[in-house]
């Protein structure tokens, strides 16, 4: 028999109303969008909000381009990230990562805002958000603010969001034409929580040499780890597979790996090495091809 603890329920017609309802609901009130992160925990009695504020009508699920940014409503679903032409064109890593989330039901319901706000260590979109230097826009009792993605998650299932503060939008700098990116993850089984993730992007200069490189490792710690410094030695160089393998090995040797019930630290370190290497090299090849994706 499955049921969560009882709770009060209200639907918000706008972000503002949602914030008001959450404030009113007290410290144990929680927002719900797709529910794919929160509800399983509630059913297993690992979480017991006193109130749920339903965000499904709070805003339109829009994907748009504004200047140099891809602007996503927090309510955009993973499946829409996967299929949206705008996302595929302007932030292909996001589409690639969204396609690897869970199963069809999770992807049809889960939202980017919900995923980021939950602070799950293995959340693919969190890793991508950090890799893409996304800005998370929020609305709370104190007003609006912008949070760099790298500062969002602060602990295990813990974000820097204040009580009653909601993610309303995610803004991502548009990928350039000489940029290639790749998101990879390995889980024990398809759709399972990842054991390790790697998000890599490289930008090539006119001379074909590496102008910029970003690498983020996800799922091995309580938050995505920006290890782009480890790729610094690639800057100004022509990208080769051996050079990238060296970077990956160095990154994997240094990165902090947390404990996991079903995989040893050593194995996750090995996976990190493999994924960083493969993601970087794929990103490099995609950049060289001149298109975002092969």
């Amino acid at each position, binding site marked *: *028999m*499955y*049921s969560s603890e009882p709770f009060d329920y209200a639907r918000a017609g706008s972000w503002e109303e949602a914030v008001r309802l959450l404030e009113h609901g007290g410290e144990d009130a929680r927002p719900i969008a797709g529910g794919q992160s929160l509800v399983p925990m509630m059913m*297993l009695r690992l979480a017991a909000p006193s109130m749920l504020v339903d965000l499904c009508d709070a805003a339109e699920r829009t994907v748009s381009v504004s200047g140099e940014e891809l602007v996503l409503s927090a309510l955009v679903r993973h499946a829409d990230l996967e299929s949206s032409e705008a996302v595929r064109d302007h932030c292909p890593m996001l589409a690639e990562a969204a396609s690897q989330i869970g199963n069809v039901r999770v992807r049809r319901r889960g939202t980017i805002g919900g995923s980021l706000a939950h602070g799950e260590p293995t959340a693919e979109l969190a890793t991508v958000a950090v890799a893409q230097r996304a800005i998370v826009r929020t609305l709370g009792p104190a007003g609006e603010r912008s949070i760099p993605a790298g500062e969002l998650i602060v602990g295990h299932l813990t974000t820097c969001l204040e009580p009653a503060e909601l993610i309303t939008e995610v803004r991502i700098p548009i990928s350039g034409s000489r940029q290639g990116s790749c998101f990879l993850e*390995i889980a*024990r*089984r*398809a*759709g*399972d*929580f990842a054991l390790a993730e790697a998000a890599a992007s490289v930008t090539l200069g006119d001379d074909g040499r590496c102008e910029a490189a970003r690498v983020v490792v996800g799922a091995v710690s309580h938050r995505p780890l920006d290890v782009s410094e480890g790729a610094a030695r690639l800057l100004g160089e022509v990208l080769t597979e051996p050079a990238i393998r060296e970077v990956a090995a160095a990154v994997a040797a240094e990165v902090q790996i947390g404990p996991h*019930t*079903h*995989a*040893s630290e050593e*194995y996750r370190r*090995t*996976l990190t*090495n*493999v994924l960083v290497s493969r993601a970087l090299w794929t990103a490099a090849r995609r950049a060289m091809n001149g298109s975002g994706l092969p």
Partner: protein
Amino acid sequence: MAAPDRAVLETAVEAPERALDELGREPAAHHRDFVEKVCGTLPYADDWGLPGMLHGVVVRARLPSARIVSIDVRAARAVEGVHAVMTAADVPYNGILDEASGLGVDAIVQPVLAEDRVRYDGEPVALVAAETPQAALEAAALVDVDYEELPGVFEPEQALRDDAPAVHPGGNRYVTWRSSIGDVDAAMRSADLVVEETYRTQRVDHAYLEPEAGIGWIDSDGVLTLRVSTQVIEHAREVAEILRLPHSRVRVIASYMGGGFGGKEDMTVEPFIALLVWRTRRPVRMVWTRQESLLARHKRHPFTMRYRTGVRRDGTIVAQDVRIIGDAGAYPLLSSRVLFAAAVNATGPYRVADARVESVAVFTNTVPTSAFRGFGAMQVVFGYESQMDRIAQLLELDPAEVRRRNFVARGDLRVTGEALDTGVGVEECMRRALAELGPRPRPSRPGTRVGRGFACSMQPYGRSVFFADRASAWIGLEHDGTMVIRAGVTDLGAGQAASLADIAGEVLGVTADRTTVHIGDSALTPLTGGTFATRQLYMSGNAVLKVARALRAKLEAVAAALLECDPEALEFSDNRVRAGGRSITIGELARAAEHQGVMPYVHDTFEAETGEFDRETGRGRSFPDYTYGAHAADVEVDELTGQVRILAYVACHDVGRAIDMRRVEGQIQGAAAQGIGYALSEQVELVDGVASSTLFAEYLIPVSVDLPDIRAIGLELHPGKGPLGARGIGEPPIGPCAPALAAAIEDAVGVRLVQLPMTPERVQRALADTRARDERAGA
């Protein structure tokens, strides 16, 4: 003990062509239960309710070893809506008598509710019935148990030591089986090569999609009735004993199961529902959560198998010495039979004149282990097939050739001294499985390597012959010529009920759409024994065949008179009886017969062959027959991550005769899928007896993308002992998967794993270890 039904067997053997003709056509229409399944209208155990129904919950201990100091149920009883809170003191007879082997092994009484000792994490200690599920959960949380934690033992090798904590007063060694033939020590000394290795298999869960569930009530005749998802309606007797009721006052109805695989072979919800019904005199429903099921319902025995195989230079086996330790968990359940099956099947489909096998069931403070598809005889396939590959490797022989030089044949003796008395089709299965794979595929991307492997097996079908197994059936014809079959089989989803309709239909000429099969009711259907041991087709199929033939014989005299012909000229088909250009409907025949006082129904029993087994000497008859097969696989291994992707998989078994080949294929594919999960990913992990996870998300059964299309091949080579020469197919395909994949992985990347599951991490670690060794050697 009655002689086996020779007439049935002889007909099958003498007229295989006619049998094939009879079976040649497709079933006329889809069987009703399958139609109901695709429509969603088939009522499973939890799809029933009754007015005034209460909801029952089991309260479980969460320590692996403890003494119960006290239980206080007052707060629980005070919750609004609660009708009953029961503990051990409230159980009239607090014992599930583990009937053990049928060979005089000491029985250990397992409590229905723990009384003074807790022996495994998840053991039931109390029951609650309440008006709502929420109230039941609330009350369950308020049952206050004071435990004194005790030392426990969690590994069988530890449990065998003299200083180990005793799970039961009699010690941790529950039963030992020994069989030997010839002089294994002398033969081993004479061998050119002795290969020794220890293989380890893991604890796994049945993970059927339908959780344990049922509902109980007292009917208008005062009969305690349970409608539950169960493989065995005969548990009605055990329920009666527990409640100290006459057996005639308990009835078990088996709903169609959403999977069983042996997980619903022992009782699950039955005793708990019954107790709550009897206490409250209200209908009580109980459904276990998935997490509860993963925690506390019995699992497959982990085995440690030490194999020593002596061979000549040409690869022929001269000696086999096998020692198996099986973890029985905290209570015996069917452990003695599982370890028996392991012992007598430990040498596989290979000739050996000098062999010794020993298997031991050992108690530990872990979740009890019991029946699961394959039942001991599947774990050993990993042992004996891995040995064969090792032998081939060390002698630089082709692994298929090594098998060919050793395969058993009809007439060869097993380690128990009994002779195989049906044809052996394993070599053709092996040839066919390998041929079906075709040319070796190439790696799909850099960093991966492709490999090919195969494995052979034999798996018994039918229960051990010293059990005097029997099954009964009733078949009758209605006035309109429709047919009713009553047989106490339970349906796991493999078409158990449908098969009976097909068999009877072939004999009596009634089509499937005019046949109703009533199954699984201990009050109203003749008992057939449970659906397990791949016995149902063999037992109830033969019972239905026997009864159908008897009914036909009874009616032939009447029909012959009506049609003015010889009985031999009669043809029963398409709901009519024909002879010499004339015909009548089955309905007309039934009415005419009844009018003459020849009642158009028969009830009878099929007795399986029996035999004796001597526990002391380990000699005698074990199983009635075996199904032989071989699987072959191509895999692609990622050299850096250890991930294994199966590119192609073929599973080939000699099924004797296929009543319905599509159903046979479905069984092969389904069992192989479970075997693949067992080989690569499934594991119930316990740390000091405590489950590290009870989430279904973390119990890794294969999903669609984890499996290739499994090419199932059912060959009809040598008739078996099932109806019309069929051999059981439910269990056999689960065995060869792990060794076939182990061989394929070794072929791909050069590492041989001897422990299951062969997870990516284990493959990767083996590869890394090998690389490190090679570097040290090369440097």
